[in-house]
């Protein structure tokens, strides 16, 4: 999986169609993930020393990871369902790489729970999941089932992914070494997902501004769930008020870039 040729010219000179053909491909994904997953086992380097938290810190980490698992399951189910309604081959291929990414995230997070001594990670996830997150998952899957491409992409790749991106980023900065490495790998995948969602919707909104009102409605239905999840997670990962506000701002930025103000 090594690149053989230098790009003939500056990457920024590509025509937009050629750029999309390049980045929405299995080949691109393949070589991109090789850069940071090669040699890892369950999302971290095999020789990273495990310094797991103990006592109440351990309990909080387990609850947090359980909720991440619900988020990743929602993303896995959402992304896979979106393939059937994706408008063209490139978006289908991109979403299939996202499906594998989400499946990987779920796997490494469940493995981390097992490493922390959770005997039955899957049932623990169900027990500790936040009602807001479960409701978000149901709403997302309803949008996918209704075959509403724009609304589902908005909920999945803009709202959910932006939330995860912001939270994982903050959590990685104060997590134990293995959890940090696992989250950093996930963040690298999330970059592709949020970028895809934002750009796909941005292009749609530019051509069909009438979609905006519908997406605004979706946002207002989901926003309180997202903010509730943010608050709960921020408490669990132990961030202060200032950092919590910054988290909220990071989440809102991507939604606002698409023209959806608070």
């Amino acid at each position, binding site marked *: 999986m090594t690149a053989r040729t230098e790009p003939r010219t500056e*990457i920024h*000179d590509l025509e937009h169609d050629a750029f999309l053909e390049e980045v929405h491909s299995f080949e691109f994904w393949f070589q*991109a993930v090789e850069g940071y997953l090669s040699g890892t086992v369950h999302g971290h380097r095999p020789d990273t020393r495990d310094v797991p938290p103990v006592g109440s810190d351990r309990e909080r980490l387990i609850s947090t990871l359980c909720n991440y698992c619900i988020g990743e399951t929602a993303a896995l189910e959402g992304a896979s369902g979106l393939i059937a309604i994706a408008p063209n081959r490139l978006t289908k291929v991109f979403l299939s790489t996202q499906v594998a990414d989400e499946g990987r995230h779920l796997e490494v997070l469940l493995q981390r729970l097992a490493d922390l001594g959770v005997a039955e990670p899957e049932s623990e996830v169900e027990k500790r999941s936040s009602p807001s997150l479960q409701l978000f998952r149901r709403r997302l899957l309803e949008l996918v089932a209704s075959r509403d491409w724009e609304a589902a992409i908005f909920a999945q790749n803009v709202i959910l992914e932006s939330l995860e991106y912001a939270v994982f980023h903050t959590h990685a900065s104060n997590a134990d070494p293995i959890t940090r490495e696992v989250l950093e790998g996930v963040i690298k995948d999330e970059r592709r997902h949020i970028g895809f969602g934002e*750009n796909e919707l941005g292009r749609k909104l530019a051509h069909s501004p009438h979609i905006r009102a519908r997406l605004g409605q979706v946002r207002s239905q989901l926003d309180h769930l997202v903010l509730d999840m943010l608050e709960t997670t921020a408490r669990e990962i132990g961030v202060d008020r200032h950092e919590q506000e910054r988290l909220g701002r990071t989440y809102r930025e991507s939604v606002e*870039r698409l023209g959806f103000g608070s």
Partner: protein
Amino acid sequence: MSDPLQGHDDASAEPGAGERRRFILDDTGFNEVPVKYRKFYRKWRGAGDALAPNEVVCPVCKVVIRSTRELRPGDRVYCMPCMSRLVVVRGESGMLEARVAY
């Protein structure tokens, strides 16, 4: 492949701007895109990190995008890690910034 940057040079150049400086890009260890594209990106090191004249930060994923040419307002750049197309603008602070072009 056409070179839209060259095509835009005259129109996009700010008054008084001279010939663009050229840069040789080295691999900075950024490992989230295929090897052949890695030199076009680097990690943003946060407050205190200074951007070179051929660099701009992606507002979507906060990676530093690099070009072999000095960047100017109106230039188009691509962020491969998040797959965004961006246009370089002069921000309120006077620094070059990138805006997503859908």
